[in-house]
């Protein structure tokens, strides 16, 4: 059985826990319970004959007082940068985290999720931000833990990238 570790990183309250819960348990809650330390879940995914056990590390968000420890990322085969589309500064946090993660564990596949895509009217990701993103040539997926939009796609795409890597 192949097992791979994936980390969820991003600013606080961007929806890391919600995305994992949507993907693993198909549930969603509006209530915000911040994550302290790390919660670990797993889910088996299949690509035809190929079975892959994803070990999902849902890491606490980065806030004014605490940075994410890079030791949590050790042994990761891939990671998600989670951004809250209704809070522009969470994109900056993602940029800085990506840099730090790459410095710590090297180049592994990752995907940036623009979460909370359901909050269309509140989006703070303007054209300038999109331009900045497209310059980086990253894989970016618009998603919503609330509606489920993009969630399967995001995990599926990252899993495939990891198998190919």
């Amino acid at each position, binding site marked *: *059985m192949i*097992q*791979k*570790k994936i980390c969820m990183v991003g600013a*606080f*309250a961007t929806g890391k826990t919600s995305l994992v819960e949507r993907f693993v348990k198909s549930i969603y809650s*509006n209530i*915000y*319970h*911040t994550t*302290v*330390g*790390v*919660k*670990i879940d*797993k889910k088996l995914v299949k690509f035809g004959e190929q079975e892959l*056990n994803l*070990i999902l590390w849902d890491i*606490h*968000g980065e*806030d*004014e*007082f605490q940075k994410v*420890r890079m*030791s*949590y990322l*050790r*042994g*990761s*085969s891939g990671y998600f940068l989670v951004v809250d589309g209704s*809070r522009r500064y969470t994109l900056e946090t993602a940029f800085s985290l990506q840099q730090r993660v790459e410095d710590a564990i090297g180049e592994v596949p990752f995907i940036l999720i623009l979460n909370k895509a359901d909050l269309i*009217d*509140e989006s703070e990701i303007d054209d300038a931000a999109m331009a900045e993103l497209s310059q980086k040539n990253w894989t970016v997926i618009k998603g919503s833990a609330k509606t489920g939009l993009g969630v399967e796609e995001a995990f599926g795409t990252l899993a495939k990238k990891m198998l190919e890597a």
Partner: protein
Amino acid sequence: MLNLPIPVRDYIDNLTVDTLSPAYLLAKKDGRLSNWGGKWSVYGITNLQQEKYVAEQLFFLEGLLPLDEVPIFLPCIKIKDEIFADVHLFSGDEGDWVLLLDATLEEKQRSLMQQKGNDLSLLRKKQAKVLNQYFSKNDPEDLAKDMLDLELKGERKDITILFADIRGFTAYSENNPPDIVFKTLNLYLLTIIQPILEEAGMVDKIIGDAVMGLFGVLASTGSAQTHAVKAALKMIEAIKNINTQQSNNSSALDIGIGIASGPVALGIIDSKNGKTFSAIGYHVNFAVSLENQASSSEIIIDVNTFNKIDNMQEYFLPTTFLDEGTQEPKKIYSYLVK
């Protein structure tokens, strides 16, 4: 090595074992389990098997073994429901050691602080958005949408209303050039608004030189009444501070505050200018009346508020309010901040 007498060392040992519930294992360099011991059952792990791959048995170790000499410290990992551990990995001659130490209590404590900090930070952000709209004279369209769950549409809710008004502003505005007047007004309004945000209140309206704040609309911990009275105290304090900073005496402005609590209708009103949030009801008007009666640096609260503010009650003295409509005297409470 610190030279401690054996009884002291034993005592510390026991203490560690009791409070930290250590559980350890030794993994061979090929990743298979060679040896283990300690309180694994505390972490809900009971069926470890010799010679099986460790990462298959404990999936949180996936990718971490074998260790490349450098120890790894992973604080506060959730091992099973409600049970957290600090995970330490270090290598020795026989292989890699994995040590778990209980961190459940620490997680609980940190969780409280972190939740409060993050909630407040999100709240401030939302309110800042709303205020920007106000001050940049944008359409205050969808004022409420940022802050309220949709379920709240047209709801009746028990809340606390705070009304604060800048005293002496009319006279001030007549004696000063308009640009100075507006700068000063903004400074004072922002000073009044900040404590509302800090106390998880929402700024409902800014009418000329007065501000209306609502407590108990946004979810928060603690009673809405206590939050409102705390906000009022902070406001008076903050106004005093800017008064002392501003050397020029002509700008010695002051505020009076009225606070009332009770059921009001909260709703979103559609008009041709878009949607605005609104709180309507007797207690809203009552807060305004109490503010009218308040003198400079005075906080006047109604009985409903007084009853829910615990030990802050001691600041307040009972007095009466004469309702102009019904001519009935009502018991109210006042605190004149010195």
